[in-house]
């Protein structure tokens, strides 16, 4: 990669430092069923990095989408450089110098890098394209940023880190006044991250205002000037970076003392219930992965977006194709390609992260959703005929235990909140004799109260001797709940941590490992058990 600090700064609009660039007051936005933003104030000065911090579902992405013109706010005032904006469209926002870099890439895999950069603002006249001019401009922008991507590469064939670079380059095609970076380092290496920070600093001195969305406290405390904390759609506070400690920030984010949020779980590991040995997936999302899960403990798997941590547990449950390796449940070898029903019968259940797409039938009642994975059991059917009364009794008891509110089993799941939906999903694990729980991002999009209940449920499951696998992108969650923690990086497990080794610095050091480590042995301090 070209040393970027040597390059000339990208073209930016000149603005005096400290000028108020963006001013938002009383912004509210409602989506069907949720108030995503509730009377939020936010402002940004030229030459400032303003961090947006909050849990998933706190309203960060709704806010940046409003600023980028993708959503219109339902209420509130939105001023950019002193001008009041109404009915802002993404295109108009870009012309005004508002450049968003989204985490969910706004890239078309079928188009090349250059075609993606210019999408929506192609050069040319009368509808015809000027290929030469676009190629030259694309080269110069990529060169200025110091990225090692070629304009004629197809975006669908690039790695996630390179796609991230295309996404960032896209923001620099026009004059930038306000840059939105949404988790920009989520798939970058340490060196690439340093390059990005150098770039951010150059932009700051050029008077660009930057909104920086991140989960990584240590990272944004280095680069941010102010931090605004959002929780459940409300602005909690805006603080100066450096004025608050890490644990204070976590408390602000969750609204709970760290000790209250995460229950103390007494892990009493006994026998190995699930053993994954040298498993490689057909699509290469996980390679030579080995881990084991014991009864009576929570085993965490942490890693960046796209590192394969979700795919590996899905593969265990038979949802991703396995190319090689063995999976054992209670020592019994499973088929090379297990099926969900087989795994359920062996007491393994998977709880998907995307509850709407994969977990629940939204139009059907709680009862049917809860019993869906157990209809083959005698409680629910005999000779393939459903036993509805027995089903009602069984599900009612489970729902009561899970504290679903209101505890009505005939309500359609679509009418429930995120937290209640998660409970319905979890109830599926109670309908049959499950001893291995595979949780994939179990607290995405649910409020703090529901989170605590999910954690409490995990605690009671572990106490009863279940084995839990917790796959999560929320670092505090995996850190505080896991007895042992595996770290995945680029499709491989790079570390197994336990005890005091489970801390943010240690985990992040594995997130950020360089590519050259990839094929080498893991560092001695955290060598794999196998």
């Amino acid at each position, binding site marked *: 990669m070209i040393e970027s600090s040597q390059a000339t700064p990208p073209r930016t609009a000149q603005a005096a430092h400290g000028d108020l660039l963006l001013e938002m007051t009383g912004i509210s936005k409602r989506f069907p069923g949720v108030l995503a933003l509730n009377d939020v104030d936010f402002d940004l000065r030229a030459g400032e990095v303003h961090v947006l911090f909050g849990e998933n579902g706190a309203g960060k992405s709704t806010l940046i989408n409003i600023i980028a013109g993708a959503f219109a706010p339902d209420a509130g005032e939105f001023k950019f450089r002193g001008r009041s904006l109404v009915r802002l469209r993404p295109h108009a926002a870009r012309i005004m110098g508002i450049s968003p870099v989204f985490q969910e890439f706004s*890239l*078309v895999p079928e188009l090349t890098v250059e075609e993606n950069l210019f999408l929506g603002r192609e050069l040319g006249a009368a*509808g015809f394209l000027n290929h030469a001019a676009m190629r030259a401009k694309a080269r110069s922008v990529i060169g200025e940023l110091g990225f090692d991507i070629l304009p004629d590469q197809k975006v669908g064939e690039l790695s996630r880190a390179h796609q991230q670079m295309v996404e960032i380059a896209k923001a620099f095609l026009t004059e930038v006044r306000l840059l939105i970076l949404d988790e920009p380092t989520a798939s970058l290496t340490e060196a690439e991250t340093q390059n990005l920070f150098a770039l951010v600093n150059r932009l700051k001195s050029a008077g660009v205002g930057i909104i920086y969305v991140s989960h990584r406290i240590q990272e944004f405390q280095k680069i941010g000037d102010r931090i605004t904390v959002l929780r459940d759609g409300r602005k909690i506070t805006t603080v100066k970076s450096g004025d608050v400690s890490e644990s204070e920030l976590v408390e602000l984010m969750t609204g709970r003392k760290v000790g209250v949020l995460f229950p103390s779980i007494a892990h009493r590991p006994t026998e190995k219930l699930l053993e994954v040995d040298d498993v490689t997936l057909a699509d290469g999302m996980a390679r030579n992965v080995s881990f084991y899960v014991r009864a009576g403990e929570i085993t965490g798997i942490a890693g960046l977006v796209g590192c394969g941590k979700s795919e590996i547990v899905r593969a265990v449950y038979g949802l991703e194709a396995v190319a090689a390796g063995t999976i054992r449940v209670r020592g019994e070898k499973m088929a090379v390609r297990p099926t969900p029903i087989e795994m359920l019968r062996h007491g393994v259940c998977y709880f998907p992260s995307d509850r709407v797409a994969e977990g629940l039938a939204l139009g059907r009642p709680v009862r049917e959703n809860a019993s869906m994975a157990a209809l083959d059991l005698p409680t629910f059917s005999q000779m393939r005929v459903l036993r509805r009364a027995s089903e009602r009794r069984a599900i009612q008891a489970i729902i009561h235990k899970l504290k679903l509110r209101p505890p009505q089993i005939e309500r359609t799941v679509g009418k429930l909140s995120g937290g209640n939906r998660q409970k319905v999903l979890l109830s599926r694990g109670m309908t049959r004799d499950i001893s291995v729980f595979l949780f994939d991002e179990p607290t995405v999009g649910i409020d703090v109260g529901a989170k605590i209940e999910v954690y409490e449920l995990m605690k009671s499951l572990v106490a009863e001797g279940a084995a839990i696998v917790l796959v999560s992108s929320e670092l505090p969650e995996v850190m505080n709940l896991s007895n042992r923690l595996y770290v995945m990086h680029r499709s491989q497990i790079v570390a197994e941590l336990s005890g005091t080794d489970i801390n943010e610095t240690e985990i992040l050091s594995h997130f950020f490992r360089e590519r050259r480590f990839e094929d080498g042995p893991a560092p001695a301090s955290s060598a794999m058990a196998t």
Partner: protein
Amino acid sequence: MMTKSMDHGGAAANAALDKFYRLYAAIGFLPIILLGLILVFAIFVPHFLVLPNVLNVLRSSSYLVILAVGQMLVLMVGGFDLSVGAVVALTSVSSALVMAGLKAQIPDHPALIVLAGVLAGLGCGFLVGLVNGLCVAFMSVSPFMVTLGTASIATGSALLLTNGIPVYGMPVGYVDGFGRGLWFKLPSAVYLAIAIVAVVFLLQNFTRMGRYIVAIGGNLQAAVVSGVPTRFYLVTAYVLCSVFASLSGLALTAQIGSGQAAINSQLTLESIAAAVIAGVSLKGGVGRVEMVALGALFLLILTNAMDLLTIDPRIQTIFLGVIVVLAVALDELSTRRTKRV
């Protein structure tokens, strides 16, 4: 299976495979298979490579080329159009009715009669395409249901207008000069098809619209946040598809010499088949017009050879179905093959 081949030190084999796939991506199997097919039929099928038959194949494939090119545009934006066959029928009936009606009133102005008839036909296509496009773009209705519905409306209207009886009485010049005419020794429809393929080729490779169509089908959300007027281009794709279907219907009607409500029930399926054979992805974002033209030619050559070999048309229908299912399955398999990084 990928790791296994690497274990056996198959780096060279992998490189060769890579090269093969790149070549496949650049030209595809289709031109090669097409050439092979022509060669085999020329040797084994009597009367295949004689001038009247070649002209016949070219003419009938032209109608399908025009239809399939439109279908490709809609497939590329991630939809599909089940109403093209019905649009052909409605165009046929309405243009013939207008011409026949005007012939009684202004028999001395054949040019005017033809113009009015053509406009009536194209108007029907435009209208159906507009309804399809608006419903898909603004009401987010599934393209499947919308176009199935408009297909039923168009077919019903065509039958109602004619009671199912063929409409005669189009100007002789239109039928003999355009429909059945040879221009510079080639059927007129061939020129129409070439013109449409050329226009769409320019559109795809040199204009904003071509790129936006890929973007909409490739990642709609990305297109929206990039400021692409997605709804406009969605509607445009559906309108172009229907208007192309109308053009095809006009040429076909002129060749038959009468407006018919039951013109060819297989056209919709054939148009989708031609596009899919040519590598157009049903998931959107992928498609090349020159390949689609070859896809249509491929289907027609097959049909023609089966005709010459006097294979039962009912068996041909089954065969068409098998080809469609195979092509779609291959499309699915090839996308699954692509490695994720």
